[in-house]
């Protein structure tokens, strides 16, 4: 007689439903792809860093790992090329341009967003058109204009002023961004201020600016980033006066100045990327907010 006394039923986990299993597999696949892509995205940075730490002859060879580690490369770049000069020029350009963009674009965006006047939509259309136009279309006459303009004998070509000054008269992209944001400010705030007897300019400078701080910060960050990395316009105007070069020009000319010392070029590349990455980490939220503002309401 078999004692078929049933033992205590084992606790059995219910098999996953096909839906749950498929979801799990998808998640695994999703994460695997993400990890793979992340490695691919980080790889160039790794290669750059490794090359930056090699000696010159090693950088030209097929070696992948520095042997020995040439940390002094990061110091050498400053002596072999006027990196400080380039950095100063770049900062001068970026800071002045960013200031100009913010100061001049906010009023325009506000007018386009919050004040009703005839031709408002037309003007906004024109802003959009200005955004879409490649700079190469206007670059020739602008260059001629700056070349022929010599107030007090001052030569604009060969300096960075032709690139900086237009930013003080409004920038289409920032106007667009700020206008989109200003549209979201509820009319009640402005009405409350109006009732309090504030003139429109007061409202703009106190209430609106404070409310729009994240958008303004985003615009400033974008402006700074764009001008820090700008190559074409500085090349055009300051290309033949090395004293006024910005980092992007200096980096691309590094090779002919110093005969393609790739290790130093990569070290300089890292150094040029570093401040931007640092700023990003410090202002991550603003960056992401700004990028989102550009697109989602678009």
């Amino acid at each position, binding site marked *: 007689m078999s004692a078929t006394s049933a033992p205590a039923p084992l606790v059995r986990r219910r098999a996953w439903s096909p839906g749950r299993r498929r979801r799990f597999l998808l998640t695994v696949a999703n994460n695997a792809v993400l990890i793979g892509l992340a490695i691919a995205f980080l790889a160039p940075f790794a290669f750059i860093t490794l090359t930056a730490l090699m000696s010159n002859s090693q950088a030209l060879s097929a070696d992948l790992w520095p042997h020995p580690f040439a940390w002094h490369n990061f110091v050498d770049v400053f002596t072999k090329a006027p990196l400080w000069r380039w950095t100063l020029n770049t900062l001068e350009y970026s800071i002045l341009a960013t200031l100009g963009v913010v100061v001049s674009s906010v009023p325009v965006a506000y007018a386009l967003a919050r*004040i009703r006047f005839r031709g408002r939509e037309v003007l906004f259309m024109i802003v959009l058109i200005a955004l879409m*136009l490649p700079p190469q279309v206007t*670059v020739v006459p602008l260059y001629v204009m700056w070349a022929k303009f010599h107030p007090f004998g001052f030569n604009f070509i060969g300096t960075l002023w032709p690139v900086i000054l237009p930013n003080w008269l409004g920038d289409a992209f920032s106007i667009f961004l700020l206008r989109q944001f200003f549209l979201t400010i509820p009319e009640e705030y402005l009405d409350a201020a109006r009732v309090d007897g504030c003139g429109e300019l007061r409202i703009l400078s106190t209430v609106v600016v404070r409310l729009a701080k994240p958008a303004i910060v985003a615009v400033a960050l974008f402006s700074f980033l764009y001008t820090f990395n700008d190559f074409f316009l500085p090349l055009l105007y300051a290309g033949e006066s090395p004293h006024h070069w910005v980092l992007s020009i200096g980096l691309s000319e590094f*090779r002919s100045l110093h005969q393609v010392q790739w290790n130093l070029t990569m070290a300089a590349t890292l150094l040029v990327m570093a401040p931007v990455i640092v700023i990003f980490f410090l202002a991550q939220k603003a960056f992401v907010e700004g990028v989102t503002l550009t697109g989602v309401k678009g």
Partner: protein
Amino acid sequence: MSAAEASVSAARPAVDRRRARRRSAWRRRRLVLLLLSPWLAGFAVFFGYPLVMSAYLSFNHYDLLSPPRWVGLANYRYMFTVDPQVWTAIKNTLWLIAVMVPLQVLFSFGIASMLARAKSGGGFFRTVFYLPALAPPVAATLAFVFILNPSTGPVNIILGHLGITGPLWFQDPAWSKPSLTILGLWGVGNTMIIFLAAVLDVPRHLYESAELDGAGPFQRLRWVTIPTISPVILFAVILGVIQGLQYFTQAYVAAGVASGQASQAADVTSGNLGYPLDSTLVYPVLLYQHGFTDFQMGYASAMAMLLLAVSFAVTLVIVLNSRKWVHQGGAAR
């Protein structure tokens, strides 16, 4: 108070009201002008005037030393019938717009969708994918040309270990634009973040009702996600096309560095734009060469006019077609 006096006293506030309204309208206009004046001035000087001037110069021969000389349609005739490089430049720019832009949009959307789905480590991945977009274009191009060096670059070395003969990348005219595309895909961070925000914004209930209808994950993507974020897709495409038409820095730097890897340094300059074999000679680079190296400013203006026409046409085409498949807000159907 007599009736006449009463009507007069009633009329006065109306007149006052009208006068007050007119005064406030005038004040508003003055305010608007004040706010807009820097931009209007800038627009006239840095946009309107150059545009008109560009059109004018395109009919002249101008080298900046002697005054412009009227040559009628000669520049345009040269451009369309003789210049051996113009058609190549147009083709190269169109290639980038037709290949690189869609790939960038698809790639960034793909990554954004995967990021939206990932629960753990989302912030880390987001940073990793955004970081390359911060790299200055010149620095990134230099790095890529070096990394993709066919004989000493790490990529071909690793491929060699795996038994694959890597292509000649920036040294091969068939691979130079794909190499630039890879560089472009590396830097899609900005578009990716936009897509991520948009995808995360899609209302949950739309997914839930689709699931109830029996839709699988890919079907949900096709019928819920994509239609809902279609305005953002349109925006990304337009942005990509605009950038494609202006694409200069990466092509210029890559050609210069790739050719300079084993050739003349200070001797004959600018002979290497578009290296190799004019494959990276995009339209803005050719414009720059004609205008600022050869100083044929009239001819460069003619090229600029063509670019203007194409920019308009392309943007118009996209915007007009967008009505067909972009949903302006609201639920998908």
